[in-house]
């Protein structure tokens, strides 16, 4: 091989004589058993090709080009280097040569990579020219190549050469539809050609055209209308499109026409009124599913105001959804239902069972559509049932889809500051439940929402802390990397809202369990800070409790009701009625203190000196080593905690058994005040606009004062933080307390842990059952019966997809919303329009409005009276437009120019044509169903003519269809 490639300088006779054909190369490739052999075979073939393609013998050259084309198109090899050789073959008189060259060029040329094609301009022109000597076998690939690879310049040069083919009248010129498609491409790359090409394209739509040309032209107009940022230039053609919609027997054409109408409908209300009947007719009668589906789409996108049509379409969708054997129809049915907004939720409700069954489909695409549909149905009255159903379902589905479900639920429920959620206790526990999903991977979003709900919804905090506790206490969750962010949120919640906790000491134990060293440092920092907050809270509560106890004792003695009580069990021992009496006397006591005291009394829970001591010991033992931690965040916070403990320990009476003595130390009072001051300020959400709303105080000139600093500070230092920021972010998830089974799970695990690592735990008297090891982290602990199948799932929301009104629910808690921008994602309505499209629309508008004024005489020969009349209609329309345009520009002055004459003529013509219509009408009664449609048209025209003359409308008033 090395030898052959070395001699690749010039093709020899040997090469020509023993050239391998394309088939030979393919055979070698097929027989090469491994990728390496194949690569070697290809390399060898390419070497040969490089020599052979330079051969003066065209046959040798063409075979080489064929081989190269094959390798390039199927094995992705570059063949741009051979572009010139392909062009060399174009002028050959032997038909296979230029055909092979065209194939090679159409597979490899593109204006951005090959600039050689202009060299072949002349040759292309020759092949396009209609002459008897010229075989259409070459014009077709020439058109194909132009459609694929023409640059704007080339397109402009060759546009006139398309004209003879485009406007050829021979009934079945096979090139005409191809020329239409090529003209479409020419218009796209070079909008300047619109004046030349657009009129012949419009003519292709006429009745006299070859059906194939009509079909190609309608495809072209569909592309143009869909691609145009503003389809209004195509409105004047609406009568032609309507005729095709009614008359065409070609489903492909009808589908394209429907697409065009869907695009035009928003511009012109009369269009929808006109197409309703034909569309319903097609929906009812067409046997072609593709056409029926297109009708459904048209109805759902443009005809939603027509109830009968919508019902018909929904019925058809039901048929689609019911087709067990055809997943395509089920998929499309769901997709079409997704087009309907909440205003038509009845349609989804009708197919509820099928939709929910589809969640279980073998096809992920179908499942996804069903999920999208269900999420679209959510409203505040069914959100609970549906989300519960979905979360249960997610436990059993495959990992990918499970997370898609979680994602959908999270984003839908969190939308617009939880606008759907009424019962936040439920939602918070739902978040906790999601974390238990074995495939859970949505930690970031749950983290955000847990903290966000905590900040915004005060009433949800007790439930939130319960959920957080259940997460923190479960050692099995610690090892799962997807959960660490959720745990971080849970830890933050437990520290921030510890006053709602039933047992703060238990929280500290959970936060300090040995397995937390599995967490990443940033989460451990949050844990340590949470411990700090809980410690401060516990200590403050303890001291306040003693103070309250003393007050109580005083109160009691005032009441002469009992002796002075001492000791730690004072508060717990008192009956609550006594305490109430006592407190009623104590107007001087801060209400907040009372509330806290009552809370702890109700929970049968007190802080004892002993337990606080143990708490201090525990924290000291576990947090102590962290003060040496290499991670600064952890280290710093650990030292804060240890510092607080040190201060507490340092107080004078700490070791005294008599608790009430403690309060005599001023230092302790100071500590309490300090701690309270540190943590009593509640964190709230901060608007991104907050800074802007702070008015600048009079006399403060910011720039002046700060400008000196610019030299000192870098940009980064003085950039204000624009977004909402908190020191910690966290997430948590919960189990419901009512589920004793689920609550016991983590508890027993913790007990096991306590047994092993007793050193780190507070003393505890309860006996706990033993378990052997940690379960794997996300083992579903919820009591979900796994035998349950879709049938059960279907039952769940049996009545719930449709919003039920007047459902007794508790009032929605206050959700803090900062301003109109808060939580609402600002959708960037990107209205970036392609300038090319604009140019094209503009050019086409010009063509339609100016050039088309002249009624085309070419088709007058047609004997079909209806077609003639339609053409009159069409030209009337454009005349009407041009007339208005001119009257806009010239005012009311009468001009003797041709256009005003024409417009007068136009009125006459109109009257004549309506007379003609009446004639036709009479005749049409004797004719087929086809003319009965015309009949409707006429009536419509008569009905709507009058108001049109009176009501002035927007500049482009068109009379289409009327």
């Amino acid at each position, binding site marked *: 091989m090395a030898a052959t490639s070395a001699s690749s300088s010039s093709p020899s006779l040997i090469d020509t004589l023993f050239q391998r054909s394309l*088939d030979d190369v*393919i055979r070698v490739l*097929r027989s090469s058993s491994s990728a390496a052999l194949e690569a070697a075979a290809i390399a060898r073939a390419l070497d040969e090709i490089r020599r052979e393609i330079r051969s003066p013998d065209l046959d040798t050259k063409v075979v080489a080009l*064929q081989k190269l084309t*094959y390798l390039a*198109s*199927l094995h*992705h090899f*570059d063949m741009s280097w051979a572009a010139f050789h392909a062009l060399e073959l174009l002028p050959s008189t032997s038909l*296979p040569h230029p*055909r*092979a060259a065209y*194939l090679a060029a*159409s*597979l490899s040329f*593109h204006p*951005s*990579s090959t600039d050689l094609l202009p060299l072949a301009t002349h040759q292309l022109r020759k092949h396009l020219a209609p002459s008897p000597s010229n075989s*259409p*076998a070459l014009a*077709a*690939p020439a*058109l*194909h190549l132009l*459609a*694929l690879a023409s640059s704007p310049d080339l397109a402009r040069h060759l546009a006139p050469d398309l004209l003879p083919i485009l406007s050829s009248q021979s009934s079945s010129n*096979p090139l005409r*539809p*191809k020329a*239409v*498609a*090529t003209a*479409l*491409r020419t218009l*796209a790359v070079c909008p300047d050609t619109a004046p030349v090409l657009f009129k012949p394209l419009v003519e292709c739509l006429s009745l006299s055209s070859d059906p*194939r040309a009509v*079909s*190609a032209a309608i*495809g*072209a107009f*569909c*592309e143009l209308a*869909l691609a145009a940022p503003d389809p209004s230039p195509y409105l004047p053609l609406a009568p032609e499109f309507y005729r095709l919609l009614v008359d065409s027997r070609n*489903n*492909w054409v009808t589908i394209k026409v429907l*697409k065009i109408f869907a695009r035009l409908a928003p511009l012109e209300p009369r269009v929808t009124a006109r197409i309703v009947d034909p569309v319903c007719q097609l929906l009812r009668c067409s046997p072609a*599913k*593709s056409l029926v*589906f*297109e009708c459904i789409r048209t109805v759902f996108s443009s005809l939603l105001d027509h109830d009968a049509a919508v019902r018909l379409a929904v019925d058809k969708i039901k048929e689609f959804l019911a087709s067990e054997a055809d*997943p*395509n129809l*089920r*998929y*499309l049915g769901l997709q079409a239902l997704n087009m309907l907004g909440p205003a038509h939720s009845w349609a989804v409700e009708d197919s509820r069972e099928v939709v929910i069954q589809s969640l279980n489909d*073998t*096809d*992920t*695409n*179908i499942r996804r559509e069903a999920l999208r549909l269900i999420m679209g149905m959510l409203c505040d009255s069914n959100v609970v049932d549906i989300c519960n159903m979905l979360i249960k379902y997610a436990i059993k589905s495959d990992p990918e889809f499970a997370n898609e479900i979680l994602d959908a639920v999270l984003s839908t429920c969190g939308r617009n500051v939880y606008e759907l959620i009424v019962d936040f206790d439920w939602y918070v526990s739902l978040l906790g439940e999601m974390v238990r999903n074995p495939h859970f991977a949505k930690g970031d979003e749950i983290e955000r929402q847990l903290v966000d709900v905590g900040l915004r919804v005060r009433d949800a905090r007790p439930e939130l802390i319960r959920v957080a506790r259940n997460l923190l206490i479960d050692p099995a969750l610690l090892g799962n990397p997807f959960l660490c962010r959720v745990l971080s949120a849970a830890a933050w919640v437990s520290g921030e809202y510890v006053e709602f906790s039933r047992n703060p000491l238990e929280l500290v134990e959970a936060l300090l369990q040995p397995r937390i060293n599995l967490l990443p440092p940033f989460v451990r920092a949050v844990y340590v800070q949470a411990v700090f907050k809980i410690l401060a809270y516990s200590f403050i509560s303890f001291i306040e409790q003693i103070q309250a106890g003393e007050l109580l004792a005083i109160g009691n003695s005032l009441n002469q009701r009992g002796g002075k009580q001492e000791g730690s069990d004072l508060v717990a021992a008192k009956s609550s009625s006594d305490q109430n009496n006592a407190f009623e006397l104590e107007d001087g006591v801060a209400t907040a203190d009372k509330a806290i005291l009552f809370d702890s009394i109700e929970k049968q829970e007190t802080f004892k000196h002993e337990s606080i001591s143990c708490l201090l010991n525990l924290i000291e033992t576990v947090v102590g080593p962290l003060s040496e931690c290499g991670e600064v965040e952890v280290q710093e916070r650990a030292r804060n905690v240890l510092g607080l403990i040190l201060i507490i320990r340092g107080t004078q009476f700490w070791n005294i058994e008599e608790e009430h003595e403690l309060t005599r130390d001023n230092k302790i009072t100071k500590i309490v005040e300090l701690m309270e001051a540190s943590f009593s300020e509640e964190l709230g959400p901060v608007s991104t606009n907050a800074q802007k709303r702070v008015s600048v105080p009079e006399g403060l000139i910011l720039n002046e004062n700060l400008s000196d600093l610019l030299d000192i500070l870098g940009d980064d230092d003085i950039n204000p933080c624009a977004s909402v920021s908190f020191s910690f972010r966290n997430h948590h998830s919960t189990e419901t307390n009512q589920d004793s089974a689920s609550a016991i799970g983590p508890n027993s695990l913790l007990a096991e842990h306590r047994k092993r690592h007793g050193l780190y735990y507070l003393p505890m008297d309860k006996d706990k059952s033993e378990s052997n090891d940690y379960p794997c982290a996300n083992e579903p602990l919820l009591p979900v019966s796994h035998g349950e199948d879709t049938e059960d799932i279907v039952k769940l929301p049996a009545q719930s997809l449709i919003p039920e009104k007047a459902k007794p629910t508790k009032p929605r808690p206050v959700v803090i919303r900062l301003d109109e921008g808060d939580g609402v994602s600002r959708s960037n309505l990107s209205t970036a329009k392609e300038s090319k499209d604009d140019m094209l629309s503009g050019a086409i508008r010009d063509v339609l409005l100016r050039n088309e004024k002249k009624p085309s005489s070419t088709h007058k020969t047609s004997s079909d009276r209806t077609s003639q009349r339609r053409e009159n209609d069409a030209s009337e329309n454009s005349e009407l437009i041009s007339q208005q345009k001119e009257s806009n520009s010239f005012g009311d002055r009468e001009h003797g120019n041709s256009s005003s004459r024409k417009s007068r003529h136009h009125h006459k013509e109109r009257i004549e044509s309506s007379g003609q219509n009446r004639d036709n009408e009479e005749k049409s009664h004797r004719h087929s169903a086809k003319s009965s449609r015309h009949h409707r048209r006429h009536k419509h025209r008569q009905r709507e003519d009058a108001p049109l003359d009176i009501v002035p409308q927007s500049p482009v008033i068109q009379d289409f269809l009327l």
Partner: protein
Amino acid sequence: MGIRFVLLVNKQGQTRLAQYYAEHLTLDERRALEGEIVRKCLARTDQQCSFVEHRNYKIVYRRYASLFFLVGVDNDENELAILEFIHLFVETMDRHFGNVCELDIMFHLEKAHFMLEEMVMNGCIVETSKSNILMPIQLMDKAS
């Protein structure tokens, strides 16, 4: 642009025909795109639907024996109509080759391209009659 590309791929994921319309992709992009589509579509079963969303295309595909016909279309395109188009393409090849198989397409790639050229131009379907599609090819066969 209606149809963006037509791909024929065998069960092993080897491309057997590739035609792109109006979309210019470099060789590497093509290789990547074909690889992704093949991975997505070939893993699907008969019980799953024939439509796959990929990047900004909708892929409509259909399997005939060992060959997958994959057509990339715009999002506006009617999926069922494209399925009918694929079927027409297969029937046309079947009529020409007689019980068409993968080998026929491998060894007559240019003919498969000619048929496609007759049917689709610039992403628009321009011809749907089998005899019209095959006429130029038969003429050429006769001439040679």
